[in-house]
């Protein structure tokens, strides 16, 4: 298909590189440097979508971030990318895009019936229409709304693209490379500041690329090219295009999304698609420019109605005509620049100017070029359904209330200009309360909250001379605060045409007997009548009007609609805009992909995976792993076709009968050192620590100040002033912070230091009746007899040349030891123990068997110490000292913790000795009691007792100590089970603890 609307001698696209792409399955051609919008317009395509609510035809309205209509879905390599703005996405060979929000096709859209049912879709229609009956919501209303609405369809597949994050620091961040951005960057960079200049478009220069001006005897485009080339060559400057600064956060942290390869057909291996920059800037200059405001008239959403500045940019940057019979509708001089550009390219425009008799250089120039101008004229309504075919125009009275001489004239596009709205979003996000400027009928930033200044047209400076002077001054001033170099560059002279004042008129009244829809928000289909209705229904606050009508709440964040909405509300309420106030701007300024926010933190990269030094051995020996925090621990070692249940039973049995070995490297380990270490432990733990001799370990429980158990573990006195503390795997980090808190803030007088040694030691638990015999073979030179190394004893040993630490401690309830060696020797230790242990029938056991062993012994773990239990509840009250004070002690005497029927841990056995009790089951007296059935407590952990070969559980129940022997019920509504049970002691196996001392 030929590019009928492409101009020959104008534009910045690369004519030597033709690119093909498909839109809704049809193939089109454009040039390198085209956006989807410019390439489609070059091909005469203006119908690209359907509107959100009424499904009215949608074309192109803008040329950049402000675009409310042309939201497309990009598809490549079977992946979908929804919410792509056609005005920003550059084309590449093989690009496939399609329309969204229309079904079955953009030309024939079933949802357009909404347009004829529009009495059902007024403001607040979701709230009103779809409320009753409630049962209809899920089944009928919501699916219908979902199918008919939305901006594309997200892919449910894993996104294979690569996204990155980057942190950067600079003296000065400048957001936007228009005249003010370039000038201030240049002034600051020359003054030695470290500058980042960010531009959201591919080309630098902003309005300089399209305006007819002269800076330092060069055209705007030439000057911007010169400045950007010099900035790029400077080592203290980072210049980034296709990069949108979308969020201004606390302490001058700004976030920018860089589109690195969105415009390329295929990304190279390791090349990211997008990159998120976290920029901490000492100072920020917001030079984000301004966006043209629409004029409001009947059917002003028809494809072919667009911003006049967009029409000009399509010509000057892309060499594309948006129409061949253009109508320019303006209330200021900007429309004339577009008209002149049309004329220069051989197209005759007609200008309708709402003003009566304005005079300025540019109006004179238009007249001299022979352009037809009708003053005091307006567009009443656009005509044509899928594309503008003509317009009803009229003369408007001086008071702007009455229309006369309505006539229909032919045209194929209507370029509107309702003056300019500064883009104050970033300033507003930083906390800057903006103020309304009567001169430009728009808000501009007021007083900086953070280290930020807004310059150029974003600050309401609409002449180039003002802009350039302000930018050079600010660039110098701000940079000099940081560098103090006093290096000021000279400001170039600026030549531009003088403009006349704009007309405050912006909304064309309806002619008698007509009810054209006049749209304010083009993306959310909010029309003048919707605002009027909201106000009639009593909504007053602009924040409420916004939410009720959804004005400015679409993905374009109301870039083209906010001010007109405010104007309308203030007109109806007979107020001025500042009295109405404006709604809050929130990040992101433009939609940002979820992928770039997540960055590289996907899959296994979302958190570290910690592996013990013996991990490879476990893998080779068929370990099935389980996540324990960030650690991977063997859950069981599978033999043949064993199930988890079978394997864990085998492993646990072998510990009870022979000897087992378990990787306990993951336990938290903390070195506690210093002359006051004993005193510190005495305050941290509930039991007494002052008299623990060197070479002995002790089990300890620590509480939070509220009396709840925080953690438990053994701590060993290695030497006079050196203790080795162990914590549970899960609480290791919290316990360290807890200890540091008390040492640094509460008891700084204690001379103690703590440091984590978790990663320094590899640990193996050797448990079972054969463990001592095995230990004797492992450490032939050490006395590990019951006398030489008694229960809770500690000694150092030599493991085939490797220094080892031997602790006689037990979690399994069997005779057991823990051997620690430096991490690098962990695998050596493990393999040696396995090798030597063969004759003692050693088998490795995983966390599942470990659980079984501790549950049937009644040893508590995380499932009992769950942040709700005090020592008494876990039967640890014997470890609570009555003599000394410790963290959390005072809480234990509170009435709720001392009441006689306080919860306590018990054992639970099913009466039939076969039915396993699901963890989390409730213990109740009467399974048939009226709901809610009063519960006595819950089952915290369940196992299959290998000692007695029947199910056994631990539960924490009310008045537990007096419940032993009672017949109750375990109910699991989740599993729909009710199991008759007997309450027994939690110490199910070896209640006297003979084995560990054997």
């Amino acid at each position, binding site marked *: 298909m030929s590019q009928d609307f492409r101009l020959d001698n104008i534009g910045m696209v690369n004519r030597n590189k033709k690119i093909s792409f498909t839109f809704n399955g049809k193939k089109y051609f454009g040039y390198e440097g085209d956006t989807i919008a410019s390439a489609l317009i070059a091909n005469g395509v203006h119908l690209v979508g359907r509107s959100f609510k009424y499904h009215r035809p949608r074309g192109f309205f803008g040329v950049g971030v402000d675009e409310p209509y042309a939201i497309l879905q990009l598809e490549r390599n079977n992946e979908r990318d929804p919410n792509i703005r056609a005005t920003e996405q550059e084309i590449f060979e093989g690009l496939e895009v399609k329309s969204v929000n229309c079904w079955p096709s953009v030309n024939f859209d079933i949802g357009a019936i909404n347009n004829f049912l529009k009495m059902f879709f007024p403001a607040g229609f979701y709230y009103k229409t779809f409320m009753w009956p409630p049962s209809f919501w899920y089944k009928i209303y919501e699916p219908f709304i979902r199918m008919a609405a939305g901006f594309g369809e997200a892919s449910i597949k894993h996104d294979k693209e690569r996204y990155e994050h980057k*942190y950067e620091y600079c003296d000065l961040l400048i957001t936007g490379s228009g005249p003010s951005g370039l000038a201030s960057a240049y002034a600051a960079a020359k003054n030695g500041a470290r500058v980042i200049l960010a531009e959201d478009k591919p080309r630098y220069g902003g309005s300089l690329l399209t305006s007819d001006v002269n800076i330092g005897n060069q055209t705007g485009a030439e000057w911007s090219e010169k400045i950007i080339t010099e900035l790029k060559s400077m080592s203290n400057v980072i210049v980034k295009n296709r990069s949108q600064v979308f969020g201004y*956060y606390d302490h*001058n942290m700004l976030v920018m999304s860089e589109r690195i390869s969105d415009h390329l057909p295929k990304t190279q291996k390791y090349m990211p698609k997008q990159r998120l920059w976290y920029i*901490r800037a000492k100072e920020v200059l917001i030079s984000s420019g301004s966006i043209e405001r629409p004029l409001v008239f009947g059917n002003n959403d028809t494809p072919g109605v667009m911003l006049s500045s967009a029409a000009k940019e399509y010509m000057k940057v892309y060499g594309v005509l948006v129409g061949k019979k253009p109508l320019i509708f303006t209330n200021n001089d900007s429309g004339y620049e577009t008209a002149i550009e049309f004329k220069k390219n051989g197209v005759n425009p007609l200008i309708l100017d709402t003003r009566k008799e304005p005079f300025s250089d540019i109006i004179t120039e238009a007249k001299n070029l022979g352009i037809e101008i009708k003053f005091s004229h307006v567009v009443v309504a656009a005509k044509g359904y899928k594309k503008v075919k003509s317009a009803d125009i009229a003369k408007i009275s001086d008071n702007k209330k009455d229309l006369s001489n309505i006539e229909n004239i032919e045209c194929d596009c209507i370029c509107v200009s309702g003056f300019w709205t500064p883009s104050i979003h970033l300033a507003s996000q930083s906390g800057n309360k903006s103020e309304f400027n009567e001169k430009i009928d728009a808000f501009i930033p007021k007083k900086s*909250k953070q280290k930020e200044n807004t310059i150029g047209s974003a600050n309401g400076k609409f002449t180039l001379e003002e802009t350039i002077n302000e930018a050079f001054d600010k660039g110098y001033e701000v940079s000099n605060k940081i560098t103090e170099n006093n290096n000021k560059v000279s400001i170039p002279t600026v030549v531009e045409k003088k403009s006349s004042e704009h007309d405050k008129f912006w909304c064309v009244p309806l002619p008698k007997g007509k009810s054209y829809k006049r749209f304010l928000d083009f993306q959310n289909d909010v029309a003048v009548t919707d605002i009027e209705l909201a106000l009639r229904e009593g909504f007053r606050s602009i924040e409420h009007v916004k939410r009720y009508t959804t004005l400015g709440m679409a993905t374009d964040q109301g870039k083209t609609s906010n001010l007109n909405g405010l104007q309308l509300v203030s007109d109806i309420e007979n107020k001025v805009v500042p009295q109405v106030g404006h709604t809050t701007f929130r990040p992101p300024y433009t939609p940002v992909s979820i992928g770039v926010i997540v960055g590289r933190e996907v899959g296994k990269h979302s958190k570290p995976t910690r592996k013990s030094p013996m991990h490879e051995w476990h893998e080779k020996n068929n370990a099935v792993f389980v996540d324990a925090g960030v650690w991977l621990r063997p859950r069981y070692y599978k033999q043949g076709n064993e199930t988890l249940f079978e394997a864990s039973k085998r492993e646990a049995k072998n510990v009870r009968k022979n000897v087992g070995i378990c990787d306990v490297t993951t336990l938290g380990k903390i070195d506690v050192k210093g002359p006051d270490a004993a005193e510190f432990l005495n305050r941290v733990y509930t039991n007494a620590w002052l008299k623990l001799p060197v070479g002995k370990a002790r089990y300890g429980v620590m509480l939070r*100040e*509220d009396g709840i158990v925080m953690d438990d573990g053994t701590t060993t006195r290695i030497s006079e002033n050196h203790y080795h503390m162990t914590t549970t795997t899960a609480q290791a980090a919290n316990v360290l912070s807890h200890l*540091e808190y008390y040492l640094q803030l509460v008891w700084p007088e204690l001379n103690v230091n703590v440091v984590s040694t978790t990663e320094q030691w590899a640990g193996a638990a050797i448990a079972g009746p054969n463990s001592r015999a095995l230990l004797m073979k492992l450490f032939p030179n050490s006395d590990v007899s019951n006398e030489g190394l008694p229960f809770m004893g500690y000694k150092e040993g030599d493991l085939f040349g490797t220094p080892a630490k031997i602790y006689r401690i037990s979690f399994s309830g069997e005779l057991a030891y823990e051997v620690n060696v430096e991490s690098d020797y962990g695998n050596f230790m493990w393999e040696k123990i396995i090798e030597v242990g063969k004759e003692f029938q050693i088998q490795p056991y995983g966390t599942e068997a470990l659980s079984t062993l501790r549950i049937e012994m009644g040893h508590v773990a995380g499932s009992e110490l769950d942040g709700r239990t005090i020592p008494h509840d876990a039967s640890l009250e014997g470890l609570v000292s009555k003599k000394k004070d410790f963290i959390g002690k005072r*809480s234990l005497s509170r009435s709720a913790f001392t009441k006689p029927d306080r919860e306590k841990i018990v054992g639970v056995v099913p009466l039939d000795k076969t039915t396993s009790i699901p963890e989390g089951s409730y213990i109740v007296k009467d399974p048939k009691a009226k709901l809610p059935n009063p519960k006595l407590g819950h089952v915290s952990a369940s196992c299959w007792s290998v000692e007695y070969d029947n199910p056994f559980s631990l539960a924490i129940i009310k008045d537990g100590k007096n419940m032993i022997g009672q017949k109750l019920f375990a109910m699991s509504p989740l599993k729909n089970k009710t199991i008759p049970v007997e309450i027994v002691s939690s110490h199910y196996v070896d209640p006297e603890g003979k084995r560990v001392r054997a």
Partner: protein
Amino acid sequence: MLYIFCPHCGSRSQNEFAYGGDATVKRPELNKEISDQEWNNFVYLRKSPRGKHLELWHHISGCRQWIKVERDTSTHEIFKTYRADELTE
């Protein structure tokens, strides 16, 4: 994201720190007899002022020191930071 000046390390991003709550709370001395109410106030009651507040932060991914930060809870302005052992004004 806040930018917090650690007296030991310099200015660092918030994501290196863990929040530690009200820094004006004083733990009752060990072995001191106190009423239920006093203990309750210490364990559970915290001021949550709008405006200037002295709070604890733990430089958990840095020097592992607890520091005191004087911050405006509504604007996030940080006025001053102190070492754990420094007297606050």
